[in-house]
């Protein structure tokens, strides 16, 4: 259903080539450049040759199009049904797209078809008009590269006002929350959108003059003991990190993954969740955190000690 050539890279690239041919600017080198830019690494070996050799008779020998119109294609029914289904997602209120053309379309699915069973229950208030207004203003600021004045409260309830240059909205499906990533007062700010009380659009800024700060990346080295299907579970769970895995022995693996130091506490409890099948080998600070949690647990309650002795 999805795997069709009409959605394929080659059809897209050929449409782009033909469009440029209509503009009269297509040359052999431009043809190759478009393919290199928009298609796969090895497409330049096949697409230009097919177009120039008349295997695909769409351009004449002078690279002029034989078509009468610039190439366009209607949306497929699947694409329309997917868009229609999005209209039932509460987060669509953040975007306000033009729904014209979808009136008679059946959605691909109902919103309650999906159950996100381990998603946090305190997601952002996507129905709240004030939240929607702030979100749209922040999104506009990012799109138009304009400064923003935001008023928000932090986790302790203290109020803040910040003039900043917003550059991304970051969403976590696990938390069901958006965070605004912005630069202000010479440092990176990450602000939960649900904590923003007001957003005011200010003047444009020159994006060339700002440098996005690099995340404080650390490398975590883990030894994985493959029992209880741990290999599959661990590698899938940490798959969103940049990582490298080595097989050390039968059912023994080493994983190196790079993480943002700011997320260390979250990563700590994720490693803890795997119990003894994961063993932290580096960095030392992380090992100390693991040891501290475990020792603290050992010190708690007679129930656990009785569990030890049983």
């Amino acid at each position, binding site marked *: 259903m*999805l*795997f069709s*050539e009409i*959605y394929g890279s*080659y059809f*897209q690239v050929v*449409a782009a080539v033909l469009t440029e041919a209509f503009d009269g600017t297509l040359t052999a080198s431009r043809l190759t450049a478009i393919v290199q830019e928009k298609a*796969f*690494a090895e497409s330049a070996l*096949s697409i230009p040759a*097919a177009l120039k050799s008349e*295997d*695909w*008779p769409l351009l004449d020998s002078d690279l002029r199009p034989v078509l009468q119109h610039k*190439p*366009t*294609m*209607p*949306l*497929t029914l699947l*694409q*329309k049904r*997917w868009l229609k289904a*999005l209209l039932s*997602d509460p*987060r669509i209120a*953040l975007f306000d797209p*033009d729904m014209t053309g979808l009136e008679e379309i059946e959605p*691909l699915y109902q919103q*309650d*078809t*999906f159950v*996100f*069973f*381990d998603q946090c*229950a305190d997601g952002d208030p996507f129905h709240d008009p004030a939240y929607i207004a702030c979100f749209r203003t922040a*999104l506009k600021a990012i*799109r138009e590269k304009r400064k923003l004045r935001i008023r928000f409260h932090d986790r302790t309830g203290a109020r803040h006002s910040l003039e900043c240059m917003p550059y991304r909205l*970051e969403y*976590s499906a696990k*938390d069901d929350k958006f965070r605004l990533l912005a630069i202000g007062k010479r440092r990176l700010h990450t602000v939960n959108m649900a904590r923003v009380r007001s957003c005011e659009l200010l003047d444009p800024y020159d994006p060339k003059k700002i440098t996005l700060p690099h995340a404080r990346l650390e490398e975590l080295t883990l030894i994985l003991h493959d029992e209880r299907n741990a290999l*599959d579970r661990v590698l*899938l769970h940490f*798959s*969103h990190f940049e*990582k*490298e*895995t080595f*097989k050390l022995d039968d059912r023994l693996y080493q994983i190196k993954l790079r993480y943002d130091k700011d997320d260390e506490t979250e990563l700590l409890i994720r490693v803890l*969740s*795997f*119990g*003894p099948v994961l063993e932290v080998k580096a960095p030392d600070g992380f*090992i*100390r955190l693991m040891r501290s949690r*475990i*020792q603290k647990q050992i010190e708690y309650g007679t*129930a*656990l000690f009785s*569990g030890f002795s049983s």
Partner: protein
Amino acid sequence: MAYSELIKNFERVRNYMREFYVYGFKRREEYSIKSARSYDNERRRIESWLSDYMSFHQDVSGKNVFLSVDSRQIPHNPLHKAFKAKSFTAKDITLHFYIMDLLADGGTLSSKEIVDHINDNYLSKFSGSFSLDESTVRKKLKEYESLGLLRSERSGREVLYQRTDEEAFHLISWADALAFFSEENPVGVIGSFLIDKLDRPSDAFRFKHHYILHTLDSDVLCDLLVAIDERRTTELVIRSLRSAREYQRTICPLKIYISTQSGRQYLLGYHYRGRRMVFFRLDAIKKVSAGNVEKHYDKYLRYQEKFDRHLWGVSTGPDHNLDHIEMTIHLGHGEEFVLQRLEREKRHGTVELLDAQTCRFTADVYDASEMLPWLRTFLGRIVDLKCSNPLVENMFYEDLRRMDAMYRGDDHAVQ
């Protein structure tokens, strides 16, 4: 057959991409493959699509290839590219542009008229041997009608075709929504196809805890969504992830369960023969065939609602009996966030505050052993743990003992 970076069948490359992305430590000879050339071709294709994300590791035992992506840093899921690599014939691509062009002004044409126009308007400009017969054109027109690109109407003995976009669709107003939902929606690859139509896609979003692998199962998911929407019984061909054994199940498909903490996707369906609710991992499903409309679909949906109330994740336990579990947590000074965490992560459980520094989480679930990873995230704060299933308590304590030994031993002395 000569190598091509395009593919006819998605299934094989689906397996390789998963291996390269999730495991990454395997060497060429460790893949259960038909032939070395097969491995080399698949690896070369994936390199061609995803060269920016491919890495290599070489040591004395050989070379291994892996896909490594920090998905927090990228705006688009690179694995979507696999869905854009379907092979086709010269006639497919040529006919596509000819048909769309001939009908671009909103007019209607029969298949015979289209063939005549193709010969007169386009092929007459070439001296080559390229030719198209009416049956090929008719077949393509029908295919495009089923995809929704064209509509048809009868006029006497003729069938006339017309494009379906007589009114412009304002896709540009969707640019931000597409950038978001193409990543966040379970069938976001459809959004990726739409983004390809935009001159200036939005770059406003990034995604934390972003699991991108599931997109490889989008075709299966799409078939299931249609079956669920049409309330049809469904036959699944499943390949066991452990034994690689293939088997079939006939079920009533009801819901798609998705983990936001691993990216895993599951179909929940009523298994007719087993007379019970069963979960199937989507990455184990090879084929979905929709059957008849299920007359009692509402009955099974009500069953699912009731069934869901005691699920922690997707494990139903051996017999659907309930395990009762209680975890008492100590809240240190200034650690109210732990209580908040319990509240937002409790799922079907309940949380009660016992005193200013103690709270209790309680749940009745089909399989409490499935909760162990979550329980361990509270290590260092658990005052008491009780479970009606003694195996769960024993495993918790045994794991803790092993972890204690692991981090207390001399081997782990911090330098």
